[in-house]
Each structure stands twice: as structure tokens, then as C-alpha cells.
């Protein structure tokens, strides 16, 4: 114990915190992705009158590990004529926003890698990078299906980023801060979801769209575009896209929890448990969507955002601002 404090004193507390945070984030990302692949299969199974994985480990819990090893052991196939630098850059790039986002999410009152006063802006700014990587994946793959998927992804992203920002802005007005921790603390009385039900719905819908999940999974619509932007990816590169997708689901749910559902606050149980219960509750809803809804069409998707969500979120923002000023 003494030696530990010595080491901390030697390299400085900030550095230790940063390294510990990074390791923690990586663990959370991997464990979460594994848990979610398992959950998705189980949820899908039970919704489709079957059981889902059950052979590998108790309740099939080890199944995702088996799959991970299978993917790792597979050959990395690079098709002919791909733009190599872009093709290899994309799966790495898609992981940066995922890792950065975890830095500012408060899992508990004390459990946060760093409380930046620009918290939410960091997440939003870096999330644009994931679209960018989908784009270069689509472009670099030298495949028309990938390209169409990538173009869809951009149009979708542009359309849904605006209502997403505006709905969060309404909460930021109320909490008067960009810091996620301050926002959680501001909900000590009543959760923001009760003040801002419309903003919550808009955020959730836009969030599902941003994570490319059904019914908004157009960039990877398998019945139209085979697999969309990741058609040509195999092995670990495919796994990285997969991992990023599941982590994005978690992040969207985590932001929704933090902004609208009181984050880690809750009675009796420790904060971290409350945080995960709420987050995974929302994650479950997103999984539920996937197994019940068909996919919307491209123009319907854009119309929904431009004609309904964006005007609605503007009105919501105006009303919030007006009420707060009075």
C-alpha cells in the first residue's frame, strides 16, 4: 500500500488516473460488447419462440467468447482493388469516438475518468468521426453495396444529428452546464425525463438512428445492401465494426440515462448499479425494436427527421427557453 502511494506520488496522480481510466474503459467496452452480443441473441431467441445460445457455458454465456476466438482465428481477407490505406484505417477509426466517449460518462459519483466541463460536447464532436469512418469504409471497399450504404449513412447522420443535439440542448438549458456530472447532480429532485418527455423521445429515436439499429438500419440493410458498408470486411476488422456498434448502443443508452433518467442517482443501491440497470434497460428497448419492426424506407427516414423531429425539437427548445426565462 505504501509503495503504491509512492508510485502515485512519483508519476503524478493525473497520469495514474488516466492510465487506470484507459484500462477501465477498455474492460468496460469489451465486457459490454460480449454481454450485449449474448443479450441480443437471447432476446432475439425468446422473441422468436426459440431459446438462443445455450450450449457453451451456463445459459450460453461463454458463446460470445467462442465467437470472438473464431473471428480472431479467421483469415483477414482483403479483396482485390480496395483502397488499402482507407480500407484498413476505417475499422480503427471507428473505435476512437467509442473510447473517447467513455472518458466523460459518469458511472458513479466518483467513478468517472475525467469530468470535463465540455463533457457532452466531447462525445458529440467525436461521434462525427464514426460516420467518417463508415464513409471511408464504404469508399475504400470498392464495392457498390458498401458505397450505397455509406452514402445512406451520411444522409441519415446529417438528418438525425440535428434533433439529437437540439433535444440535448433543452436539458443543457435546464442544468446550465455541459458537464455530465453537473447534469446528473441537477436531477437530484426529479428526473429530467418528467420535465422533458418530448426531448427524451426525440433523443431516443435519433439515438437509435445514429447507431444504425432497426428500424433505421439502412446503411447495413441486409435485404437490400447485403451488409452495407461492412460487406467486404472479415475476421477481426468485421469484429471491430461489430464491437463499435454494440458499444455505440451502450453509449446512446448511457447518455439517455445521464441526461434524462438521473444517471447514477437512486435509492438504497450504490450508484453504479443504478446506472447500469437504467442503461441496460434502455439497451433492451433498442434490442426489442430490432426484433419487432421492419425497416423504414430511405425517404421515409429522412422525411421523419426533417419534417417531424427537427421542427418538434425546435419548438421544444423554444418552449424550454421561454419557461426558464420566465
Amino acid at each position: 500500500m505504501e509503495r503504491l502511494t509512492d508510485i502515485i506520488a512519483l508519476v503524478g496522480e493525473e497520469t495514474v488516473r488516466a492510465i487506470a481510466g484507459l484500462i477501465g474503459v477498455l474492460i468496460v467496452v469489451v465486457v459490454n460488447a460480449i454481454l450485449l452480443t449474448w443479450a441480443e441473441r437471447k432476446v432475439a431467441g425468446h422473441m422468436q419462440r426459440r431459446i438462443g445460445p445455450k450450449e457453451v457455458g451456463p445459459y450460453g454465456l461463454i458463446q460470445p467468447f467462442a465467437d470472438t476466438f473464431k473471428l480472431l482465428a479467421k483469415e483477414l481477407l482483403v479483396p482485390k482493388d480496395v483502397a488499402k490505406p482507407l480500407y484498413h484505417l476505417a475499422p480503427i477509426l471507428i473505435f476512437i469516438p467509442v473510447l473517447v466517449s467513455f472518458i466523460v460518462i459518469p458511472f458513479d459519483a466518483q467513478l468517472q475518468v475525467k469530468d470535463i466541463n465540455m463533457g457532452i460536447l466531447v462525445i458529440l464532436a467525436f461521434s462525427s468521426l464514426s460516420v467518417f469512418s463508415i464513409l471511408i469504409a464504404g469508399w475504400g471497399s470498392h464495392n457498390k453495396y458498401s458505397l450505397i450504404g455509406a452514402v445512406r449513412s451520411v444522409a441519415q447522420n446529417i438528418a438525425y444529428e440535428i434533433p439529437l443535439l437540439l433535444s440535448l440542448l433543452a436539458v443543457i438549458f435546464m442544468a446550465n452546464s455541459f458537464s455530465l456530472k453537473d447534469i446528473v447532480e441537477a436531477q437530484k429532485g426529479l428526473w429530467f425525463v418528467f420535465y422533458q418527455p418530448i426531448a427524451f423521445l426525440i433523443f431516443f429515436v435519433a439515438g437509435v438512428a445514429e447507431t444504425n439499429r432497426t428500424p433505421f438500419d439502412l446503411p447495413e440493410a441486409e435485404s437490400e445492401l447485403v451488409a452495407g458498408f461492412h460487406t467486404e470486411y472479415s475476421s477481426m476488422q468485421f469484429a471491430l465494426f461489430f464491437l463499435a456498434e454494440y458499444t455505440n448502443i451502450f453509449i446512446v443508452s448511457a447518455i439517455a440515462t445521464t441526461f434524462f433518467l438521473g444517471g447514477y442517482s437512486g435509492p438504497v443501491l450504490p450508484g453504479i448499479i443504478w446506472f447500469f440497470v437504467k442503461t441496460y434497460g434502455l439497451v433492451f428497448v433498442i434490442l426489442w425494436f430490432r426484433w419487432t419492426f421492419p425497416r423504414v424506407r430511405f425517404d421515409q427516414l429522412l422525411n421523419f427527421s426533417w419534417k417531424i423531429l427537427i421542427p418538434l425539437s425546435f419548438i421544444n427548445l423554444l418552449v424550454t427557453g421561454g419557461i426558464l426565462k420566465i
Partner: protein
Amino acid sequence: MTLGELIFIFLLFVTFCGALTTVIARSLIYALVGLVATMFGIAGLYIYLNAPFIAMMQILIYVGAVAILIVFAIMLAGPFYKKPTEWSKVTKFLVSLIIALFTYLLFMRIILHSFLGGQDTAFMITTKDIGRSLFDKLTFPFELVSLLIVVSIIGALMLAIFSKDRK
């Protein structure tokens, strides 16, 4: 050399390399990747200058919106993109020289006459200051800019509608 200086040099390096790629790359999409790297480098420099808000806005707007719109444009033209006729080397050289000189002079003028000139401490700008100056001191130009944007949006919509009719 301290850690801070190292980071500064690294950011400069990223910015510079990105800018160079943007200019030199023969393929549009690589040029764009370079541009995005530059934007990130600049954002890093802003953070170095203790202006995280501007840094985040830099990424949000330039990477999240501008760069993606550019890719969108490239992709729409993509599969059927025809290379324009090449300029001769002399013309290229002359044009780049003129643009470089113009930019250099412009920047020199701004830096020499800047109200920040002479201060050697890093400046501190908070979101509050930015909001105040936008809505108090600079209300008129701010509104003017928004008007410009509205006009351009309407123009773009009209263009889209008319070109759709033509098809």
C-alpha cells in the same frame, strides 16, 4: 523539452502533414482524410491554447459537418466522376504562387493589426464570453450571418426542386 512542448510539436506535425496531404494527394478522398487530420490538429492546438470550447466546436463543425458534406459531394459525383482537363505545370505554379502570396499577406495583416498582438499569455475564453459577445456586442453581424445562411438554404432548396423537375 517538457511534455507540453512535445505535445505541441506533435500537434503541429499532425496539422502540417494533414495540410500537406490535402494539397498534394491526387485522390480527392485522401485529400479529405488529410483535411480531417488538419482539423483535428488545429483542434488540439486550441486545447493547447486553453480554449476547449472552440476546439470542440472545431471538430463538431469542421469534421462533423463540413468534411462530411464534402465527402457526400465527392461520393455523389464518385462513381461517374470525370477528371477535369489538367492544367499545364506553369499555370499550376503561377496560380499556387498567387494564392499563397495573397493568403500570406492577408494573414500578416491580421496578425500585425490584431488586438491580441503583444500579449504573451494564453487567453482564456469561456462559453459565457463567447455567448455574451455574440448576442451583446456583435448582435447585428451575427443576425446578418444567419440571414445569409437562411438565404443560401432557400437557394439550395430551390435549386434542388428545379433540378428535380428537369429530370
